[in-house]
């Protein structure tokens, strides 16, 4: 899709914090960071908001949920739709990103136990199996292969389905819906319709789980928190985790593989040294920063960020790719160096909304990249096939053919 048709169909203009030159944030964004530091930018929907661009400032904003409110930020975004208050409340129920403490704390506490490091280690053998099955299928079919369709998308999708208790057979529908929900080029009305469709699907799953709660995450929520969580909250939590669980890791696997293929010296380190994978995943997270910005936040009081006064009631967003390549926080930030080993990046956010699934995403990437590169040591990009997906809440690849 060309940018012109994109603009005509959906949001008006690609905002500066979403624009990239392949792997890099555009110079206009890094100039904001290295110049005014905090500046008004126009969002895709024509609203002017403050963009926070430096690493230190982003951490400060994300650490202060009292001043920078997700609840109010979400309410402001919602003003642009035409739902009734009751419908809006239903759509919001269970969406952890739409709440501040103590409402957020209540929901998050029900989920933390499911995403501990120890819990993830128990999933490790199953993730290995899923990765190997997909690599076997690629090998059996032979090159070329669309790495996105054959590996990057199905692996995290199957993992989150099994973890949550979503039938993988329904994947065509929910993968399409998720893609559309996060596609900024689609008209708001269409995205909302898809959102409602997605909620309905989740509602049928919740009904089924309530009748017969299994061993999966949704079953656990019904068994252990069924009295405390409303039906809409259960559907909302499941919906958020399903979306977050496959779009993000999937794009990291696709984009990360391309990044390594275009930096053969770095790829060789990851492929040949088993100890290199952990720091390499952190560096890819930092360098690629596939989430352009966190959720919008609205200030609850007059405040100040990096010397810039922000009045009460204004909206603020954090430009994560700019922050993760801030030369004030890391040397030579535009260079991909898988041996850095720094985990100070904000690719998973920071503060109370720090990505719940980060330990799962890390494990999937560690297993996925290492297994892919070792299975196909001669992996190569088919020139001209890499299709960067830009106008989307999460940056990544729409398609990318590889051979070996």
């Amino acid at each position: 899709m060309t940018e012109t048709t994109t603009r005509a169909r959906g949001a008006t203009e690609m905002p500066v914090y979403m624009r990239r030159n392949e792997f890099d944030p555009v110079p206009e964004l890094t100039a904001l960071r290295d110049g005014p530091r905090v500046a008004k930018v126009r969002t895709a929907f024509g609203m002017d908001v403050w963009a926070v661009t430096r690493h230190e400032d982003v951490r400060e904003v994300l650490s202060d949920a009292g001043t920078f409110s997700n609840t109010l930020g979400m309410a402001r975004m919602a003003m642009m739709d035409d739902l009734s208050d009751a419908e809006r409340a239903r759509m919001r129920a269970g969406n952890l990103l739409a709440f501040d403490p103590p409402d957020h704390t209540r929901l998050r506490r029900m989920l933390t136990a499911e995403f501990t490091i120890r819990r993830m280690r128990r999933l490790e053998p199953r993730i290995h199996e899923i990765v190997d099955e997909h690599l076997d299928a690629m090998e059996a079919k032979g090159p070329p292969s669309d790495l996105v369709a054959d590996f990057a998308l199905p692996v995290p999708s199957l993992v989150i389905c099994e973890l949550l208790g979503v039938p993988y057979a329904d994947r065509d529908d929910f993968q399409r819906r998720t893609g559309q929900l996060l596609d900024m080029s689609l008209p708001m009305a269409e995205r909302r319709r898809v959102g409602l469709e997605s909620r309905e699907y989740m509602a049928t799953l919740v009904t089924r789980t309530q009748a017969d709660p299994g061993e999966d995450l949704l079953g656990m929520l019904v068994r252990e928190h069924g009295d405390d969580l409303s039906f809409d909250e259960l559907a909302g939590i499941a919906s958020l985790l399903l979306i977050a669980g496959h779009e993000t890791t999937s794009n990291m696997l696709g984009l990360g593989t391309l990044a390594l293929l275009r930096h053969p010296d770095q790829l060789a380190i990851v492929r040949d040294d088993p100890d290199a994978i952990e720091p390499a995943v952190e560096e890819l997270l930092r360098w690629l920063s596939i989430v352009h910005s966190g959720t919008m936040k609205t200030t609850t009081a007059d405040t100040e960020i990096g010397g810039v006064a922000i009045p009460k009631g204004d909206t603020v967003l954090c430009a994560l790719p700019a922050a993760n390549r801030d030369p004030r926080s890391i040397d030579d930030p535009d260079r991909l160096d898988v041996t850095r080993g720094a985990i100070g990046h904000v690719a998973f956010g920071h503060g109370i909304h720090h990505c719940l699934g980060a330990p799962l995403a890390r494990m999937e990437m560690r297993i996925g990249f290492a297994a892919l590169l070792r299975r196909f040591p001669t992996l190569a990009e088919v020139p001209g096939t890499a299709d960067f997906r830009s106008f989307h809440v999460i940056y990544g690849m729409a398609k990318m053919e590889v051979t070996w």
Partner: protein
Amino acid sequence: MSGSTDQGHTEQGHVHVVADRDVCIGAGMCVMSAEDVFDQDDDGLVRLLVEDPADGTAVRRAVEGCPSGALRIAAEQTERTARARN
């Protein structure tokens, strides 16, 4: 929550770390940074395995990296302050 203060006897280079479980969101970053010092309980919240860990570098990294701000170093005993207390 740890009720400890900075009065404990710590050797040179050791740090005294305090974890606030009311603030913790269970991200597990501390376990990644220093798994000999931090663990997560059955609810996913931080549990201190050692209150005065020796590996100050890893602990400082964990404190710095903690997304929720649940960790802090209460007192760092350099050789001089440790001697003064003794």
